[in-house]
């Protein structure tokens, strides 16, 4: 990984992503927070592409921006105006302190550790990833799909109203 383009992209992405994440933390309007969150996701997709995980970058945009963010927007809209406040609880300062400490520890670990970095940065094609998912990781893959099905059914059951349940054919 070298070249001016990659470096430039990295710093731009860092700026965008961190500012967007800060925006999620600081904006008082929940909808603005969601839009900042989307920007964070897009920045993340950029990082994934930088790390030569093209397919995952695209999947990130498709799933997070196209589906999860829309889902969050939907939930925001379904809760009325009173629920669109993005204020903090009084745990804000303690949380900030805790996270600051955690960040310091992690940063120390990152800088202090002598990472075993391989000389030749590795890349995986989408085909290779698919191959791995369906051979070596097939059990977790199936489990994940089961989890998705369970989540689907569960969330449908959760949001059904009593009237709708009453309408069910027995």
């Amino acid at each position: 990984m070298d070249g001016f383009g990659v470096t430039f992209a990295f710093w731009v992405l860092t700026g965008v992503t961190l500012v967007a994440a800060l925006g999620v933390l600081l904006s008082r309007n929940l909808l603005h927070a969601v839009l900042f969150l989307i920007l964070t996701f897009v920045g993340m997709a950029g990082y994934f592409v930088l790390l030569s995980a093209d397919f995952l970058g695209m999947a990130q945009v498709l799933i997070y921006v196209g589906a999860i963010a829309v889902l969050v927007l939907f939930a925001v809209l379904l809760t009325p105006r009173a629920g669109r406040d993005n204020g903090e609880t009084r745990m804000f300062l303690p949380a900030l302190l805790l996270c600051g400490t955690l960040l310091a520890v992690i940063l120390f670990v990152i800088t202090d550790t002598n990472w075993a970095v391989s000389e030749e940065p590795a890349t995986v094609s989408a085909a290779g990833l698919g191959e791995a998912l369906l051979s070596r990781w097939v059990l977790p893959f199936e489990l994940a799909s089961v989890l998705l099905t369970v989540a689907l059914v569960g969330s449908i059951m959760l949001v059904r109203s009593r009237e709708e349940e009453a309408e069910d054919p027995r």
Partner: protein
Amino acid sequence: MSGIIKSEPFTLNIGPQHPSTHGVFRIKVKVDGERIVDAEMVMGYLHRAMEKLAEERTYTQNIPFTDRTDYLASMSNNLGYVLAVEKLAGIGVPDRGNAIRVIMAELQRIASHCMAVGAFTNDTGAWQTPVMWCFRERERVLDLFEMTSGARLTCNYMRIGGVAFDLPREFEPATRKLLADLPGFIDEIEGLLVGNEIFLARTRGVGMLSAETATNFSLSGPMLRGSGIAWDIRKADPYCGYEKYDFQIPIGYQGDAFDRFIVRLEEMRQSVKIVQQALDALPGGPHSTHVPLALRPPAGEAYARVEGPRGELGYYVVSDEGPSPYRFHIRPPSFINLSALKEMTVGGTVADAIVVLGSIDIVVGEIDR
């Protein structure tokens, strides 16, 4: 979407400035999600105090007013009014005058239904195509009106005792050509829309009105016939010699927006039939009797009704032997048809409300007078 989430119902103003209210008319709907829980009609944005103004003008001077109530069916309105005055004053009309009146009223019905069908499909979202096709045919009817009366929209053609002018020589061939073309056009519209799945999905079962409700609301015209009630003033209480013509009353099946639509299409076919017969048997003679300009009918009251394109169009005139009516009242069909709007919209979605409004075929000039 509604019902799942506990939501705050909010009020949505459809109109007065809205692409689909066909004029300045307003519905205040309370919606829960997209579902309408309450609807309130607000009208009067186009009120011109016509009924009061008419008390200051002579009987003949009032005819142009009737043009401007239902501006899409000025001939029918003229006819209703002059029938009422003739009944009040006991004036007879020559055969030719009656035949011309029938021709004009039926042509007007075709023109008005063209507009109704077109605007209705526009409300279902067909992007202007049917409306333009309908306008194309309506233009030809309006050309005929221009030929005879000099005006296209507000014709002011009927007179007490007959019609204003005799038919011009070029009227008959032009009308025959139009009559030859119209069935094809109606088939075309039918082929375009009745076989269209999306159109069916949007109109079938929307704005259902049972026969009982329809009669209770005292609806008339295609609204009533769409609910399966065979009622047509041309048959039930014939005027202008309608009993001489052979035609049938189209009625619907279950009283939804689609039924009103096919009833209107069929009515256009029947109108073509009537015009054909009237034109074939057009009697000679004068087109009008002489009526004094300052008409002073004997004291009394008269109510005359015609089957307008939108339903029973009634005129009620009271005379106190003066030169102008003592009381002048209109029974506008779309005003009364509109009263069933709430019945039809509550429980549906906003999109349905628009379709229902289109299927009523309102003319705001007539509602507000």
